C-alpha cells in the first residue's frame, strides 16, 4: 500500500480503489480513469468517485463533471513530467474544484512543495520515499514570489 499524506505531511487514509476493466465494484470509493468515468457516470450517481488524469489528459476533459467528483488524482508518469502542475492549477483556479487533488505515480519528496503551491493537497508517495522527511520538504520555503493556489496574491502585492 503506497503512503498517502496530506499537505501538512501527515499520513491520511482516504482510500480510493483503482479498478481495471469495466467491471466496477458495487461499493467502496473508486478511482476511475476518464474513460471509465465517462462510460459509467450515470449509474454511479450517489457513489464516492474520484477520477485520475493521465499526464496528457487535460482538466477541461472533466470540468463539467467536477461537482460529482469526490477527488481528482493527477498522475506523474515520471517526476520530471511537469504537466500535472498546470493541470492542478487549472482544476483549482479555473474550474474551482474544491475537493482533494491528489498526486499519484512518480511522486517524490523533492517536488512536494511546488505541487502543494499548485493546488495538490494529497500525495501518494512512491514506496521508497521517507515519509518522515515530508514535513521538511513541504516547507523548505516560507515565502514565494508568484501567485499560486496556496497564496493567490504574489509577493509584490504583499510587500510592505
Amino acid at each position: 500500500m503506497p503512503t498517502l499524506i496530506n499537505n501538512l505531511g501527515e499520513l491520511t487514509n482516504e482510500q480510493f480503489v483503482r479498478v481495471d476493466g469495466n467491471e466496477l465494484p458495487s461499493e467502496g470509493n473508486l478511482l476511475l480513469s476518464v474513460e471509465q468515468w465517462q462510460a459509467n457516470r450515470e449509474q454511479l450517481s450517489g457513489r464516492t468517485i474520484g477520477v485520475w488524469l493521465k499526464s496528457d489528459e487535460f482538466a477541461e476533459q472533466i470540468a463539467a463533471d467536477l461537482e460529482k467528483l469526490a477527488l481528482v488524482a493527477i498522475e506523474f508518469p515520471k517526476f520530471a513530467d511537469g504537466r500535472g502542475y498546470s493541470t492542478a492549477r487549472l482544476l483549482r483556479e479555473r474550474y474551482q474544484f474544491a475537493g482533494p487533488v491528489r498526486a499519484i505515480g512518480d511522486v517524490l519528496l523533492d517536488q512536494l512543495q511546488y505541487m502543494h503551491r499548485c493546488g495538490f493537497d494529497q500525495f501518494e508517495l512512491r514506496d521508497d520515499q521517507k515519509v518522515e522527511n515530508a514535513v521538511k520538504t513541504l516547507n523548505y520555503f516560507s515565502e514565494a514570489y508568484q501567485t499560486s493556489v496556496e497564496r493567490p496574491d504574489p509577493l509584490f502585492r504583499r510587500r510592505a
Partner: protein
Amino acid sequence: MYQYDEIDQKIVDERVEQYRDQTNRYLAGEIPEAEFLPIRLQNGLYVQRHAPMLRVAVPYGMLTSERLYKLADIADDYDKGYVHFSTRQNVQYNWPELEQVPDILAELATVQMHAIQTSGNCIRNTTTDEFAGIAKGEVADPRPWCEIIRQWSTFHPEFAYLPRKFKIAVNSRTDLDRAAIAVHDIGLQLVKNDAGELGFKVFVGGGMGRTPIIGSLVNEFLPWQHLLTYLDAVLRVYNLNGRRDNKYKARIKILVKALGTEAFAEKVAEEWAHLKDGPGTLTQDEVDRVSKFFIDPAYEQLADEEPAAVTALRQEKAGFDRWVTRNTMDHRVPGYCAVTLSLKKVGVAPGDATSAQMRAAAKLAEEFSFAELRVSHYQNIILTDVKKSDLPALWEAAKANGFATPTVGTLADMICCPGGDFCALANARSIPVAEAIQAKFDDMDYLYDLGDLDLNISGCMNACGHHHVGNIGILGVDKKGREFYQVTIGGESGGVNNEPSIGKIIGPSFEAEEIPNVIEKLLNVFVAQRHEGELFIDVVRRIGVQPFKEAAYADADQ
C-alpha cells in the same frame, strides 16, 4: 542595482539550506542519481568532462565590485583560481567539488547572488543589453523589467519541469538588439504605443541549437501591466502542449512551428483571457519599487567633448587611440563613456578571467565606475560609467591587468563556448580554434579595416557559442571520432540594424587546421566585394553565400 530586502534574502537563504539538505540526502544514497540530476541542475551544477561545473547567475549581467570580489574569492577557495564568463551573462566555475557546492551557494548568498535555475528544464536567467540604462535611444530602461521577470521566474511552482529549458531576453533599443531576443524562447521588445504607453512586443519560439529559428511575433503590443500574466499564459501553453517524447523536439520553437504562429498565438490568447487582470497583474507601485534601484549614480556635470588631454594622448599613442576607438562606447550622459575590459587576450580562452583579474576589475570599477560592472554576452566585462577624462589612467590599468586588447567588436572579439576541452556535451574543441584564429589575425590595422564582425564558435549543436548568429559561425562536429568544423556565414543576432538572421552553411566541414585559412578566404571575398561603409554581414546579404562558398572551396576543387 537591485538590492534584496529581507524577503528576497530569505528566499535565497532557504534555497541554500534546501540544496544542502538535498546534497546530504544524495550523498547518503537517499536520492538516486537520476532524481538528483534536475535538483543539481536547477542549482547550477552540471557534471562535466573533468569535474562538476557550477554556473552562477549574473541576473541581466549586472555586478558590483563587492560581488566580483566574492566571485574571485570563491575561485581561489573552491576552484582553480579562474572563472569563465559565458555567453548568457553567467559565470562558470570549472572545478568545484560537488560536496562543497552548498557552501559556495551560501557564500554567494552573502552578496545577494545565486545559481538558481541556471540550468535544467526551467526558466533560466533573464538577459538583456549589456549597455542597458546607459545607452542612448532606449525606449525605457529594461533592467527593472528583467528584475521583475527574475522574481516571477524564481521558483515558479508550475514551470520547474518544462519539456525543455526556457530562456527569456529583453531588449529596449529599437534600432539594434544586443540581447539577441530573436533567438530566445521568449523575446521581449520594449515599445511605446501611439498613446505613449509602455508595453512589449512579444516574440516566441526563437532559438539556436539543432533547429535554429527566428522567433515569431505573437503579440504586437502587450501593455506592461499584463507582462507576467501573459508570460504565465505562454508558459502554460508550452508546459501542457510541448513535446516531451523527444528532447530534440521539446523546445517551444517546435511547438510554435507545429501549430503555426497564428494558432499558437490564439491558444495563448485563450489562456491569457483567464489570467488577465488577475492577481498576477503588475502594479505601478511594484514597478516604481523596482525601478528606484536603477536610478542614475551621482554623475558629474561634464562637457561632452573629449577632454584635451585624451585627444592629445590619442594623437601621441596609437595604442591608446585604438583602445578608445574600439573599447569605449557612447554614454547618454555627457562626459561619460562605457569601457569594455576585454577578456579576449590572445592565448587565453575567450571569456576566462583569473581571480587576480577579477579583483583588478572590481578595483577599477570602484575607482572609475561607481563600483558597478556588467558582463556581456560577448564574454567581456564592462565598466559602464567612466568619465572620459579618466580614460588615460584606466587604459594604463587595463593594460597592466591584461584587459586592454583593443579588439572589441572585431573578428578577434570572438564568442566561444568552453568546447571539448571542458564540456561533456561538446563534439569538438573550440578554444584551440579560437586561438588559431586570433593568432592568424593579429594585425590590428587589418582587423579595424574589416570593421565590426561577429565570429562565433560552438563546440556542438547546443550552440552555446551562438554560431548560428555569428556573421561567421563555426560549429564543431564529430565525424567518426574526429573533430571537424562546419562554417556558416550571414548569421546576425540583431546588433546590426536589428535584423536578426540565421547563418547559412557554406558546404562540407573542415579540419581544425584549415579554419584560419578558410576565414581568410571569406574575408578576401568581403574585402574585394564591399562597397564604401559596408560590413561583412551587409556584403553577405547583398551578394549571397555563393561567392564565399566558391572561394572557400577553391583549393579543394583543384
